[in-house]
């Protein structure tokens, strides 16, 4: 099942995601320039939000780190293995099992995205096979049994991945068999209105300068714009269940992701702009089959006109586009649809009016139920 989230969100002047010249990113759509927030920028914000706020079992988190030896060692020590041997075994297991290389400071040469569940699985294999491993550890050149390295690799393929890795995927050059295909696709956010890029010319004055000094001590420019975005992401629950290796945590991870996508905001230039907003409209669609972005609703740029605000016209365009698509292609495997908007915007809905919900919580509850029926298949 595909869980699609379609958001309309305005930002006051901001520079959330910039290019090499420090200007907010942009693109062209419908023959007009548009503001843009890249997929990768939003994904990072979502990941951070999800780790900080989600009400999840910490076992569902993963870390990008190079310091895996002490982590694995402490797992082994807890299982009753003497510290000195645990350290050697941990290093060898990571070297042989994950094909990692370490420097003198016991840090891996590359940064690795590993989950706590995966680390536990490795520790488990080591303690179970301790009698076979222990003899090789003493001596000048410690050795690690090849078959146990293979068992570790096999376990890493088969062990369910923690939520982070399962959602966003993993690519590991040293051992491609443990790569994971992401379950989330996140589109670049594109403004529904024509982009109007602005420059803020600023000067800084020396507070402690003498009275003879006139004029500015520093001058500069910051690019910014004020835009209303269409944001879109889709989550493949079947792929996610496959990555997690089961459906036990599926519901809580889908929920954590959906909430993070709705609430997370990129941190770029926020000290100077404080553009902290929430979406004005949230639409959720559960579908069997190819997900469809509704961005074409805004191919003709939206503007405040006809006595209606930009947001009112944007919500209206979304509603009209949904009707058009359904007329042309049928419902296309839609199992559930629902929308929440601010009260003043709800009047713009026609075909979606019957599925208007009270709150984001109520919408997500229903959407998740529909998406996770039969374990997401």
């Amino acid at each position, binding site marked *: 099942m595909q869980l699609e989230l379609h958001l309309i969100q305005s930002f006051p002047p901001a520079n959330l995601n910039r*290019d*090499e010249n420090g200007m907010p*990113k942009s*693109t*062209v*759509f*419908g*023959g007009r320039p548009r503001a843009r927030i*890249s*997929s*990768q920028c939003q994904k990072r914000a979502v990941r951070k939000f999800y780790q900080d706020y989600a009400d999840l079992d910490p076992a569902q988190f993963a870390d*990008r780190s190079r310091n895996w030896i002490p982590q694995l060692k402490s797992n082994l020590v807890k299982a009753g293995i003497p510290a000195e041997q645990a350290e050697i075994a941990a290093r060898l297991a990571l070297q042989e099992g994950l094909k990692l290389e370490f420097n003198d400071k016991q840090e891996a040469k*590359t*940064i690795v995205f590993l989950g706590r569940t995966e680390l536990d699985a490795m520790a488990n294999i080591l303690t179970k096979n301790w009698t076979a491993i222990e003899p090789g550890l003493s001596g000048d050149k410690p050795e690690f049994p090849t078959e146990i390295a293979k068992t570790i690799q096999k376990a890493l393929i088969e062990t369910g991945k923690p939520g982070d890795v399962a959602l966003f995927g993993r690519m590991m*050059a040293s051992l491609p068999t443990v790569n994971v*295909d*992401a379950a989330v*696709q*996140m*589109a*670049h956010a*594109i403004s529904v209105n024509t982009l109007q890029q602005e420059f803020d010319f600023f000067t800084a004055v020396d507070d402690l300068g003498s009275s003879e000094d006139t004029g500015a001590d520093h001058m500069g420019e910051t690019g910014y714009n004020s835009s209303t975005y269409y944001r*879109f992401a*889709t989550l*493949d629950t079947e*792929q996610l269940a496959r990555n997690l290796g089961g459906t036990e945590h599926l519901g809580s991870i889908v929920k954590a992701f959906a909430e993070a996508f709705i609430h997370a905001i990129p941190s770029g230039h926020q000290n100077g702009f404080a553009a902290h907003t929430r979406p004005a409209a949230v639409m959720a669609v559960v579908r*069997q*089959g*190819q*997900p*469809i*972005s*509704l*961005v*074409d609703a805004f*191919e*003709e740029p939206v503007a405040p006109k006809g006595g209606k605000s930009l947001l009112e016209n944007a919500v209206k365009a979304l509603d009209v586009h949904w009707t*058009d698509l359904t007329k042309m*292609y049928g419902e*296309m*495997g839609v199992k559930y649809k629902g929308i929440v908007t601010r009260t003043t915007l709800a009047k713009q809905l026609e075909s979606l009016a019957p599925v208007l919900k009270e709150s984001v919580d109520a919408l997500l509850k229903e959407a998740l139920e529909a998406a996770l029926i039969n374990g997401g298949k």
Partner: protein
Amino acid sequence: MPTLLMRLRAPMMSWGDHSQFGHRDSRREPTKSAVIGILCAALGRPRWDPVADLAALKMGVRVNKEGILQRDYHTIQDNIRDKNKASTTLSERYYVADADYLVGLEGELGLLQQLDQALEQPRWQLFLGRKSFIPSHPIRVGVVDLPLLDALCHRAYEHRGRKDPPSQLRFVMEVQDGTDIRQDVPLDWQNRRFGRRAVTTQYFNVPEVICTFPS
């Protein structure tokens, strides 16, 4: 022989066929590797499975709307090639903005029907060049009982935008011999090996009837 038609449309799409690492270029129309990659994802066919049956299909592209080549500035921290972990790696990723394509693949009816079915219920997620470039239109159009060029010429499309529709549309067709060589025929995904094919670019007047105007 019949033709499978696919509509490729999204605000951003990318069709790379020769660049690697920091600088990722894009063609102005879909590559064969991208189109076959979409079909493999729809079928749920993994990278290590053979792809020769799909690579043998004859491909043509009609450009419903020419896009604009744009660049995304992308930074990567803690990348694996970075020895001292201090610097940020820069990557320039080109993409085509605001384009719209109709792609045709000519071949045996049975295989084409199987592919068409898969596009309706794709096994894995479909995307247009990069995972974040999500279609804004159903890819599936159907199988028509016409040879490639006729199928591409006669399929109607809706014209959007303020300007009048162009009197001619650009077609990029696969041919036996030619000087415009593209190295985008997938041979082995796993080892990233690609074969070559020749294409020719032609402009055709399209009958006015094939153009519809959405309200």
